[in-house]
């Protein structure tokens, strides 16, 4: 058993709380959308299981996982960028 991963997990919990503790409510929507894109890293999980898939069922499910993950990560970052590019300061 590798306890290092638990160590990483606990630290990440606190960092996650800390970094957004001062976010103004005007940015809640883009922040939600941006963090939504970050969990699109699940695409990697999809790639890893599909790369190792042995059966047709595993290939089919892995394929769906990759499509879902890819839509999550690409769509998430794009839609967040589209929102944020509109935030402009007065000239």
């Amino acid at each position, binding site marked *: *058993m590798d306890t290092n*991963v638990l160590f990483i*997990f606990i630290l*990440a*919990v606190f*960092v*996650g709380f800390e970094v*957004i503790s*001062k976010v*103004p*409510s*005007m*940015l809640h*929507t*883009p*922040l*939600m*959308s*941006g*963090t939504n894109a*970050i*969990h*699109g*890293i*699940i695409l*990697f*999980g999809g*790639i*890893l*299981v*599909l*790369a*190792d*898939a042995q059966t047709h069922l595993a*290939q089919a*499910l*892995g*394929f*769906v*996982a*990759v*499509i*879902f*993950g*890819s*839509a*999550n990560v*690409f*769509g*998430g*970052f794009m*839609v967040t*960028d589209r*929102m944020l590019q*509109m*935030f*402009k*300061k*007065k*000239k």
Partner: protein
Amino acid sequence: MSSQIVPLIIIGVSVLFILGIKFLSSPKTARTGNLVAAAGMFIALCALLKTDGSSVWAHGWTFNYTLIVIGTVIGLVIGAIGAYSVKMTSMPQMVALFNGLGGGAAALVASLEFLKDARGAEPVTAFITVPMLFATLIGSLSFSGSIIAYLKLEGKFEKPMTFPGQNILNGLILLVIIGLGGWLTFNATGGNAVTAFVVMFSLALFFGIAMVMPIGGADMPVVISLLNSFTGLAVAADGFAIHNNAMIVAGTLVGSSGTLLTLLMCKAMNRPVTNVLFGAFGSSGGAAAAASGIAGTVKPIQADEVALLLAYAQRVVVVPGYGMAVAQAQHSVRELTEELGKRGVEVQFAIHPVAGRMPGHMNVLLAEANVPYDQLVEMEAINPSMDRVDVCLVIGANDVVNPAAREDKASPIYGMPIIDADHCKTVIVMKRSMAAGFAGIENHLFYKDNTRMLFGDAKASLNALVTAVKAS
């Protein structure tokens, strides 16, 4: 790529994710933050490692790799079409949909790993099984829950669906799921394990639906934020199961920041998170408030008069609500504020934390209409100076300016923080008719002595105001 460099790269990627989220919490750096996180994602993809420590990209090309490329491209196209075609008013739906896909992917990845191990002869340790079961459960719940949240925001079965004993039934389903999970933890191989796993997966999908159905459309943002953090945790659990540190870090960051964001949203609405999830809002209480009787009468006003008030005011505050966005009146509002600005009137927008359909949604909608963000002031910042405002223009907002939240202890919204529009010298409420707001509560503001009602379509009224201000 040597396997010693990769852990270092992953540390760098983790820093990029943390900085990305950090930058996302300030308007000046938000766009950079999103790009920083995206760059981290790309670098992590290049350094992707298999569980045995070899790079995914180092092996020979197989049919599975072709599937990976095709799947990624399909997802990219779906994502891009969604991201660039969605209307800004429908942003919460889009986030819900992307979140659901992520949750579904997390559940599928965990299931595939579990089924692979279940067929193997080697017994699997609980340290691997528990994260896999957790990811399956949370991921599938997030998938089905997000789909329901999406449909509710689209206006399908928007009303809370409740029946007696619902919370008890949901509790029982959850107990069965946890029981199956507990059994599977120690019996993770063989045919029975596969059957139990499939049952657990299906029940978790159903539980996601059962959990979100009783919650009203107005509370969907909180639900989406919660499911967003759920998906993050599911991804982190997947990371444990397949030994991918980048997934652990990214998933956990989203899980914990998403949880905090959910709590912040509930705080802004002054409702405990348990109330949102387990108590159907607005199903009672609205009638009682209306019956309590309000002193005063409603006093209508014409656009010409409003234009004069605005043109000769020193300080004007606009309180926008979702009604403004529905009437597509953001551009007319911006035109009016620019016209007033030219005349030397100080114009600001007062943004309630839950204006629009989710916190921060109104800022996005106004930004789309080219309103500079430094003109937008948050509720806490503007309330102390509201008594020095000459004219307050309430456009399509209702509950967030209802003084009943301060004055009427019997009101269902009592205690909710509001924008103190009634403290201004004159309040102009732009409204289509006298119908009650989303929560079905009578608005005391409409009957105050300093309030005038400008009835009609918000966009048409605003255009009339622009013309009249130009002329005066």
